[in-house]
């Protein structure tokens, strides 16, 4: 089986899921969103602690980019947007960012729609109606050129870089060869790899962007952590067999495979090129996931050595264990065992099995994180609230 299918969107993108997303513009109305999600379990919901109280241009840019990226996400067929009324990222202020979303969006403001309970009632009606409407939409064949796969690693162990991330790298190379796009971020985990990544840049300009991105991540790490910056490679890492920061980071960036780096995009920004893309995002898994999803990734592979259950509201997340012990200990949470690479299995065999799994997931098979509803929505800010 190699055919893939999805929901073709008016903007030309293709969803591999057809979610109704219930999204708060600001944390003040999270309770309303929770009520709607409890009454209509078929929706995806994405409460978050943001939307107001941060005024700097960088934080505003991120806020609007991530929220509009969620609304425009290809796996989202319709949106119920719940606002308060006086927040920074109000429905009125979001409108310019979403007017081209070209999908059904119903919007309610708690301050003008009758308070929380009445707004929840309206939201429940809208969500039910929208779910009903989306059911008539059918999948159509899609090409790999329309696929964006994100690569992530978290809760890593000493084997993550030599089993699971190597398997992710093999998938990345296969996808790029097929014409698909692969995107990964986690700039703090690129420290020490600028030389290796720059050599693979499409041109001098992109090489320069890679260098500046990693320099900033390194400087920020030193500024924020001071003397503790050395903990980016910790005594625990060293006991585990990792000797240098370059070794640790290579074990991270190997998940992007070996192809040419076509573009560097900002946190939450969607690529305009196909092929391998770097995103200038943070190492913290949950914030990283939101940036990659807002960038349009329909699917994520996520490697883990210690084990993490985390998923994302509108993007299926495929968990890949670096070792057999964690795969068995968290069998409800982890989809693939790359620990077989330490037990004599070949990388080619594992890769081919993962490709078949990926095709089934694109075509609708649920991942463990989807089945368990382990979704988390959290995104980066650069300044504290005021």
């Amino acid at each position: 089986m190699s055919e893939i299918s999805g929901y073709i969107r008016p903007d030309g993108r293709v969803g591999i899921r057809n979610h109704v997303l219930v999204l708060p513009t600001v944390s003040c109305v999270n309770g309303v969103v929770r009520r709607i999600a409890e009454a209509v379990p078929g929706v995806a919901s994405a409460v978050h602690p943001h939307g107001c109280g941060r005024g700097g241009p960088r934080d505003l840019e991120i806020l609007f980019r991530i929220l509009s990226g969620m609304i425009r996400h290809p796996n989202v067929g319709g949106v119920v947007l719940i606002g308060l009324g006086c927040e920074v990222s109000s429905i009125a202020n979001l409108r310019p960012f979403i007017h081209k979303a070209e999908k059904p969006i119903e919007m309610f403001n708690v301050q003008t729609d009758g308070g929380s309970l009445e707004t929840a009632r309206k939201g429940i009606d809208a969500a039910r109606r929208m779910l009903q409407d989306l059911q008539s939409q059918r999948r159509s064949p899609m090409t790999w050129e329309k696929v964006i796969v994100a690569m992530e690693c978290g809760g890593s162990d000493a084997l993550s870089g030599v089993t699971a991330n190597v398997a992710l790298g093999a998938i990345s190379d296969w996808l790029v060869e097929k014409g698909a796009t692969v995107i990964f971020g986690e700039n703090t985990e690129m420290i020490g790899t600028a030389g290796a990544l720059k050599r693979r840049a499409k041109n001098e300009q992109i090489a320069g962007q890679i260098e500046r991105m990693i320099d900033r991540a390194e400087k920020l790490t030193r500024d924020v952590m001071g003397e503790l910056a050395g903990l980016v490679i910790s005594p625990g890492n060293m006991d585990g067999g990792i000797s240098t920061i370059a070794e640790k980071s290579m074990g991270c960036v190997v998940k992007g495979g070996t192809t040419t780096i076509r573009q560097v995009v900002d946190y939450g920004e969607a690529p305009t090129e196909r092929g391998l893309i770097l995103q200038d995002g943070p190492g913290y898994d949950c914030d990283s996931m939101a940036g990659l999803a807002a960038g349009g990734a329909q699917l994520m592979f996520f490697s883990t050595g210690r084990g993490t259950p985390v998923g994302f509201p509108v993007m299926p997340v495929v968990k890949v264990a670096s070792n057999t012990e964690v795969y068995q200990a968290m069998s409800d949470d982890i989809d693939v065992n790359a620990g077989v690479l330490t037990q004599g299995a070949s990388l080619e065999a594992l890769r081919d099995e993962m490709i078949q799994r990926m095709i089934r997931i694109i075509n609708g098979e649920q991942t463990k994180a989807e089945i368990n509803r382990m979704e988390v929505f959290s995104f980066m800010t650069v300044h504290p609230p005021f």
Partner: protein
Amino acid sequence: MDNVLVVHPRDNVGIAVKAVAAGEAVVIQGQEWFRALEDIPANHKIALADIAPNEEIIKYGEPIAVSTQPIQKGRWVHTHNLASQAWKK
């Protein structure tokens, strides 16, 4: 049963996927290669070739460190016999 994993064909170190004792045969993809010259802790690196002082330690096909002394094939490779290059390298 394999006890050492090699990530990239260019690498001069492999990873012991289980503890390898001194004198034990190193098995990579079902084939016995050479014997470990000392105990290699699980998940640590073993030299796949003789490495000269100041030679790059290659893993993932990329330099991850430089050696600070001669390292014989079969020796444990870690912070005692390598040095980190600058972060940016």
